[in-house]
C-alpha cells in the first residue's frame, strides 16, 4: 500500500499544472478555514467607508453597506466551499448507493432505479433548482440539499456501469461460487473497486456545485445576505454602475470562483490519471 501511494503521487506530479493547482487550492482552503483569524474585519461589520476603492485600510475596498470586501471574500469562500463539499458528499453517497443496488440487482430493481435516474436527469436543471429554491426557504442548507439531489444521477450511472463490468470478473464469480453473502460482495469486493472513478467524478461535482451555488445566489435564490457567499457578492454586479465603475466589488469574487473551479478540475483530471495504474511508465 505504501508503494501504491508513492506510485499515485508520482503519476500525479507528472501533471505540472495540477500540482500548481493543488498548491493554490490548499492555500485557498486554508485561508477559508482561518478566516476568523486572518480577516481584517468581521464579515458583517459596517465601517464608516461606503463603496470605497482599495486602500491601505481596506485592501479590496468596501461595499455599498460599508463592509470590508476582503473579509467578506474570505468568509464567502467558507460558505461556497462548504456548500460545494456538502452537496458533493450527499450526491455521491446517494449516487453510490443507488448505483451499487442498480448494478448488482439486475431486473426490476435496476429498471426502477434507472427510470428514476433518467427522470431526474431529464429535468431542466436550473429550472428545477429555481423552483425548489422558491418553494423551500432559501438558505445555505436548502441549497446544499437541492444541489445534492440534482447531482447524484451522474454518480449513480457511473457506479452502475462499474458494477456491471465488475460482475463479469472472475473474482466476482469466485465469490458467488464460494457462497459468499451479498453484503460481503457489495461492500467488501465491489465498492473498493469503484472508489477511484467515483473520487474523480466527485471532484467535478464539487466544481459544478460551487458554480451552481454562485449562480443561484447571484439570482437571489441562494445563500441570503448578510451571510456572504461568492455568488451573492456578485449580486451587486447586476447594476451597470457597479459593473463599469466599481470593479473591486465583483472582480475579486468572480476571479475566485474561476480560480477554484479551474483548480478543482485540473486536480480531478490529474487524479484520474494518477489512480489508473496502467499509466505507469
Amino acid at each position, binding site marked *: 500500500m505504501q508503494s501504491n501511494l508513492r506510485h499515485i503521487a508520482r503519476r500525479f506530479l507528472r501533471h505540472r499544472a495540477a500540482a500548481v493547482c493543488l498548491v493554490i487550492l490548499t492555500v485557498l482552503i486554508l485561508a477559508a478555514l482561518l478566516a476568523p483569524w486572518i480577516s481584517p474585519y468581521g464579515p458583517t461589520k459596517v465601517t464608516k467607508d461606503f463603496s470605497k476603492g482599495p486602500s491601505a485600510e481596506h485592501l479590496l475596498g468596501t461595499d455599498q453597506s460599508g463592509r470590508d470586501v476582503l473579509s467578506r471574500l474570505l468568509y464567502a469562500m467558507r460558505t461556497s466551499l462548504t456548500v460545494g463539499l456538502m452537496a458533493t458528499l450527499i450526491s455521491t453517497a446517494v449516487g453510490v448507493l443507488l448505483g451499487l443496488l442498480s448494478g448488482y440487482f439486475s431486473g426490476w430493481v435496476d429498471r426502477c432505479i434507472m427510470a428514476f435516474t433518467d427522470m431526474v436527469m431529464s429535468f431542466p436543471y436550473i429550472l428545477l433548482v429555481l423552483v425548489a429554491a422558491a418553494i423551500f426557504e432559501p438558505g445555505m442548507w436548502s441549497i446544499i440539499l437541492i444541489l445534492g439531489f440534482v447531482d447524484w444521477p451522474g454518480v449513480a450511472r457511473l457506479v452502475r456501469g462499474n458494477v456491471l463490468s465488475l460482475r463479469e470478473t472472475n473474482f466476482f*464469480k*469466485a465469490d458467488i461460487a464460494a457462497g459468499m453473502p451479498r453484503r460481503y460482495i457489495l461492500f467488501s469486493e465491489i465498492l473498493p473497486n469503484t472508489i477511484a472513478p467515483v473520487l474523480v467524478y466527485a471532484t467535478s461535482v464539487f466544481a459544478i456545485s460551487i458554480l451552481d451555488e454562485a449562480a443561484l445566489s447571484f439570482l437571489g435564490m441562494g445563500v441570503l445576505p448578510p451571510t456572504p457567499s461568492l455568488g451573492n457578492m456578485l449580486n451587486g454586479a447586476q447594476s451597470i454602475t457597479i459593473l463599469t465603475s466599481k470593479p473591486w466589488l465583483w472582480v475579486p469574487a468572480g476571479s475566485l470562483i474561476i480560480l477554484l473551479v479551474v483548480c478543482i478540475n485540473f486536480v480531478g483530471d490529474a487524479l484520474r490519471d494518477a489512480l489508473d495504474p496502467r499509466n505507469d511508465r
Partner: protein
Amino acid sequence: MAESAPVISVEQLAMTYRDGLTGRRRTRAVDGVSFQIYEGETFGVVGESGCGKSTLARMLMLLERPTEGSVTLNGQRLDTLSGRELAALRPKFQMVFQDSGSSLNPRKRVYDIITEPMLYHHVCERSEAAQRVKALLGLVGLPEGVADRYPHEFSGGQRQRVCLARALSLDPDIVILDEPVSALDVSVQAQILNLLRDLKETRRMTSLFVAHGLAAVHYVSDRIAVMYLGRIVETGSADDVFHRPAHPYTRALLDASPSADYAERGRKRIVLAGEAGGEDWSNGCAFCTRCPFRTEGCERDLSMKALGGGHFSACTRALNGGTGA
C-alpha cells in the same frame, strides 16, 4: 472405483441459449451430457473452442442454471435447490478460472483473499487462520511470505496457485478447473500440471479438468471425455482415449498437435476442413459434415458404443475395428 458412489454425477445436462427478439433463435451449447466423477479421480474434458466445455463447467458450479438435466453432488441434487440452500453447500464444490488476472480482487492481499471465505463458512477459527494460510500456500508451492502481497505483484502461474489455494481452503469435495493452464506459458503450464498431479496423489483431490489440449488433459486425468458441439463423442480411460482413439474427431484432435519426434512427422494425419457448427445437426451426428469416414446413414446413430474397459464412442466406425489409418 465404480463400486462407490460418485462424488458428482451429471445426467442429461443441457443448456439452451435463446437470442433474438422473440427468443426463437436457439443455441444449444450443451446437449445432453452425462458422466460421473468418483473420489480421488481427475476427469478431463477436451474439445475445441465453443464446444460447450466451459458452459458445462459453469453449469456444474451452478453459476448458470442448466435448462435440462440434473447435477448431483454426494447424492444431493443441486440444480433444484433455492439460492440460500445452494449458498450453504457451495464450499463443497469450488472452481479455478482460466483468466487468473481477474480471478483475484486487485485491492486485497492474498491473506484476505484466502481467509475471508474460510472465516465466513467457519472452516476455521480466526486464531488458526494464519496457520492455515501458511499450510495452503505451502500446498500450492508458494512461500508463506506472499500472503502480504497484492495480486498484481504475481506472475500468471503464481496467481493460478493462489486461486487453487483459495479453492482448496474450503475443503471442497471437488474442484472444477476451467482451462486453468490455457492462459499460461508452456513452461509454467507444466509446473501447474505437475502441481495438480501432486495434489491428486497427496490429497486425493477430486477434480474436473477442462482444457483444449489433449496432451495436457491426458497428463493429469484418469478418465477423459471428448466433447464436440455440446455432446460427448468419446469417453474412456485417459490411456484408451489418448492411445486408442475410437472417434474420428478424437483422432483429428490428436493429429492436430505438433510432434517433436522426427519419425512422427511423416505420419498420416486427419486434417479437418471447415469450421464447427452452422448446419442443422440436431437429429444426427454433429461431426458428420467434417468427417472423412462418413458412410451412408452413419450420422443417424448417436448411441454410445461400448468398446470394453469403460471406453465408449459415439461413432459407428468404432465397432468395425477403429478409425483405420
